């Protein structure tokens, strides 16, 4: 056959390494159990907590989440890849998501995306070499009244013009929320709750 076979028999998780999920993360995950009839139902919240903590969801993380929830790792793999919000590769400290759906497109999202690419020097799905930003696009963010719009981590920015991009990128608080955060999904990090580490940093 013209293309090679992918090896799925060899493990990719490094089983000798110390556990990836800290006790806090695991405790946080377990705190969701009481909300549902099954442990399995805590999977989406669990993955959010893991992604908050590690920046992305590695094979190893999937495997460990599976253990905490007592479900097969394949089921975690299944779910992680279904949802666009879960990253399976390391990403930057901040992730910029540009809406690419119809209203934003009509209001110039295409040009805006090009501007982000130009200023960051990366393409969609890529991370800047300094690890500061990853760039992605998503379908409608339900902020169409502010089209074209962008998310930087949790923070939404509306009516962003290409000319605004340099200033926006330079602003260290471009991901700072104006509302108090709920720490429901946060692993306990003991830091200022409004700026949390993202990206490939390992905690705990």
């Amino acid at each position, binding site marked *: 056959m013209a293309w090679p076979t992918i090896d799925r028999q060899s493990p990719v998780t490094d089983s000798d390494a110390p556990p990836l999920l800290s006790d806090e993360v695991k405790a946080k995950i377990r705190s969701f159990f009481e909300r549902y009839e099954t442990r399995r139902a805590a999977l989406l919240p669990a993955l959010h907590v893991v992604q908050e903590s590690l920046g992305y969801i590695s094979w190893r993380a999937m495997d460990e989440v599976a253990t905490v929830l007592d479900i097969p790792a394949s089921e975690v793999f299944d779910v992680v890849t279904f949802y666009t919000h879960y990253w399976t590769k390391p990403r930057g400290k901040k992730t910029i998501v540009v809406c690419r759906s*119809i209203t934003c*497109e009509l209001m110039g999202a295409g040009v805006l995306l090009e501007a982000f690419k130009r200023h960051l020097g990366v393409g969609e799905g890529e991370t800047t070499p300094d690890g500061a930003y990853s760039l992605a696009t998503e379908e409608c963010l339900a902020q169409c009244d502010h089209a074209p719009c962008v998310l930087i981590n949790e923070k939404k920015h509306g009516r962003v013009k290409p000319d605004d991009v340099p200033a926006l990128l330079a602003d260290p608080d471009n991901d700072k929320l104006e509302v108090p955060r709920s720490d429901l999904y946060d692993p306990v990090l003991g830091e200022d709750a409004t700026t949390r580490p993202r990206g490939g940093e390992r905690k705990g």
Partner: protein
Amino acid sequence: MGDYEPVLLRNVGVEGAATIGVYKKRGGYRALAKALKMTPDEVVEEVKAAALRGRGGAGFPAGVKWGFLPKDRDVTYLCVNGDESEPPTFSNRVLMENDPHQLIEGTIISAYATQSSIAYVYLRVEFHELFHILQRAIDEAYAAGYLGKNILGSGYDLECYIHRGAGAYICGEETGLIESIEGKRGWPRNKPPFPAVEGLFHKPTVVNNVETLCNVPHIIERGAGWFTGIGPPGSSGPKLFCVCGPVNRPGCYEGPMTITVRDLIYGDAYGQGMIGDRKVKAVLPGGISMGILTGDELDMKMDFADPAEYGLLGLGTAAAVVVSEDTDIRVVLRSIAQFFAHESCGQCTQCREGTSWMYKIARRIAAGEGGPGDLEVMYETAGNLGMMPGLSICGLSDGAAFPIRTLIEKFRGELEQHVREAPDEIEQRSPSTVRS
């Protein structure tokens, strides 16, 4: 419509409305107290009498849906559908961001009516700020005794949890949503059984849209008669409309379902006309799934009945995106096709393969490489994946088919020029040329 007194949006713009104190000061949680003095069945009957039709897109009467719950059930769940992912819809966001307690009150009353023990609010994950706001409001409601055990001394218990999605439009479909709460991929289930009989964790479950539930406290407080007095028969009650695109005042507005698409774009209380007085080329008035109107079809009424007269699937989410005359229609075609190809869950053959095929063609046409036959294949493919009920498990494929079918029907002339003539790529326009 200038004299319409907003009901659902009455707290929008009011300082501190998202906090329980201000909400209560403005009359909040009175309906709850009233409802808890009624029997659950009386609440169901009141909502039935109001003929409150679901605002999530399908327009199914909420009271009737609640009535489908089996009589002899032990556990019931209420799922609040806050997945809101249909472009260009943002009315649920406006409701929750500005007035979270209205939703919580509606949820508690509806949960009481259906005797639910847990209400899960399914929130799309991209609603980050909203999540923090709503979670805080829920915490406040717990602290005030509106949630938890023995609510207001009634003996009724209710837990309310937010369940955040993770980026999948299909989780707005009620059974995709249920699967997603269960920790699975959001693959919709075959129906029957309907969720009312077998839903979340195989228990009887009611799924309602945020806006639907926000209406409930007002129905309880002011009575079904008040509700049916607003708007035409079959489309009663206050309704939120979104309008966006190159209009002067994009936003979410409230009104009766007597307004037309024209009112929505040009009305003073609504969009206030087009930027730079551009002409309207097309409108997708019910979210993109319902189909497209030409600039000559702006008299369509934004109610549950009229859209069918214009070849559309329905009122949908009553969110309109306006396309101006200077937009190449291929942009619209490609954008729609891309959305559905990206969001099809991939279970049903027609939808999985059809949406991605249509996107391939639309992308090629948009790149100026369309050829003879492309429009026909696309038109037919749309027909093969969703113009006939039952072809697939859920409504996404119909939603993918209608805009593409109606767009090709209504803009065939323009499209044919592009597929016949030599390659002509769409010019990328900058936002500054759109908005002054």
